[in-house]
């Protein structure tokens, strides 16, 4: 069953009088439970495509249906609410709030739920345990290594139990060994917890952890590799 269905999706940006075509009529289906790597040169439209699937951006034309919801035309408020329930985001530079402890960072998405404080903390601790950082719950991001920060970001992404994890270069700022640990963790989340993972990467080794790899070039899907 497709969890992501894109039909004839285009995204153009206007800079002054110039129109930049970033995505050109993309058709894409992603099955639930898939682990998909999106590769391609810089400026090929990978992050733009990821933003559209994650409900952060709207296409210039076409249809974007994710987790059973047509995202085109949704208001900013509806999109935000939809994101909080369906998407977990993982960024290259972790994007943790430096003033909050690891537990509080992980707890952030739960502030949008009806859960009480105790339950939120319990859920955050469970998420930190899954990523192997239960003993670092009270540490602030500045007190953690890059790999540990990315694990906290992954815990934050999964704490509200979304169906889809959207990862933008999740290992781009990490050394090889740490990157492998993070990719193993993503594989675990895909395999054991059934999360659909869509990952943008430049790194073929990172992409090798995915079940499928798609290549983008100048806004077009050019080929799919197994």
């Amino acid at each position, binding site marked *: 069953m497709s969890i992501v269905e894109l039909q004839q999706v285009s995204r153009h940006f206007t800079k002054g009088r110039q129109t930049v075509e970033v995505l050109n009529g993309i058709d894409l289906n992603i099955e639930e439970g898939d682990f998909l790597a999106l590769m391609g040169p810089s400026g090929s439209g990978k992050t733009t495509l990821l*933003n559209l699937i*994650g409900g*952060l*951006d709207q296409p210039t034309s076409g249809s974007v249906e994710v987790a059973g919801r047509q995202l085109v035309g949704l208001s*900013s*408020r509806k999109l*935000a*609410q*939809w*994101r*909080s*329930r369906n998407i977990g*985001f993982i*960024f290259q530079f972790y*994007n943790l*709030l*430096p*003033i*909050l402890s690891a537990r*509080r960072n992980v707890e*952030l*998405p739960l*502030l*949008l739920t009806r859960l009480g*404080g105790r339950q939120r903390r319990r859920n955050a601790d469970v998420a930190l345990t899954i990523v192997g950082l239960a003993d670092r719950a009270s540490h602030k991001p500045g007190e953690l290594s890059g790999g540990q920060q990315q694990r906290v970001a992954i815990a*934050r992404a999964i704490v509200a139990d979304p169906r889809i994890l959207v990862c933008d270069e999740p290992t781009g700022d990490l050394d090889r060994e740490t990157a492998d640990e993070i990719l193993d963790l993503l594989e675990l989340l895909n395999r054991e917890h059934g999360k659909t993972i869509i990952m943008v990467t430049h790194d073929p080794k990172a992409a090798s952890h995915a079940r499928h790899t798609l290549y983008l070039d100048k806004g077009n899907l050019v080929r799919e590799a197994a």
Partner: protein
Amino acid sequence: MKSFPLIWSNLFRRRVRTFLTLFSIIAAFLLFGLLRSIAGAFEMGVNVAGVDRLMVSPKYSMVDGLPISHLAQIEAVEGVAEATHMTWFGGTYQNPTNFFPKFPVQPRVYFDLYSEYIIDPLQLDAFERIRTAAVAPADLAEQYGWRIGDRIPIEGDIWLRGDGSDLWEFELVGTYTVRDDESTFASFLFNYEYFDEARIPETQGIVSNFVVRVTDPDQAGEISARIDAQFENSINPTRTATEEEANRQFAAQVGDIGLIMNSILSAVFFTILLLTANTMTQALRERIPELAVLKTLGFTDRRVALLVLLESVLLCGLGGALGIAMSGFALQALGPELEGFLGQIEMTAATTLSGVGIALLLGVVVGLNPALSARRLQVVEALRK
């Protein structure tokens, strides 16, 4: 409330900057609490003055003085029940910070006129009988540890003695209280006869004001006009008004207290507004990517704007509340020092509430623009920063 830890942590992300801003706000509201309370004391003095008493003052300036010979003419005016005089003595007790009003008066008639002042009849007899006698408000005596029989030296700055000395010494023969605390100008009083005889002969017979009790308060306006008419063509013309009006005129001579204080406070709050707005704008600029992350996680535009706005309101509210509380403590500590001059000074509920209200309003005004900017923030663009 779920987001309170987030707001609190954001507020103190740059501790030095936040504390400096907080101290500025505290200082502003400390000033607000003190100045509004002092202005309130002036207004209170005006409000509680007796309406059956008239104050006869020099027409042109309060420093001119009036001849005591006016008293007999005033007493003869139709509608005047009783009259006496008062003279502003000035003077210093021990050091200039020990300020309290001092007046030479006619003991018996003065206490008749100010019936709200309660004094033991035996002490009043002594006050009248002993030439160097003085009486003081009970709380003033308590403040300085005076006991009956103590000799109280006052250094004169307006009135010198005939022997060239500026040292006046009085014997405390009694204390008095004010019924229901209704007057705010209880003063150190001493015997006029002694004062007049002892001062430099050229200045003898000069008093500052006359106080008149009228038989019918409803006729106060007509009686005032009659008194002034008596002296219209003399070299010492008078201006008579109810005590309430006279106090107002006195305050007006000092300056429009309310206007002065409000002007100071407006300048202070305007500065605080700019300072805090700058802090909040900087704080917002620094965390644009973080706000974008919150939006990415599902925080709505409105919720993110509210977080920023509440941060500003919390900062100003906290500063305001601490400043107002500190001014309350300061007034408690300074109250006895200031009461001698300004009467009863207290932090009223109105001052407290208006202070808190202004603080919250300041928070909203300061936080509005950053909050709107946060609301407008586009996630995709902001994440690139």
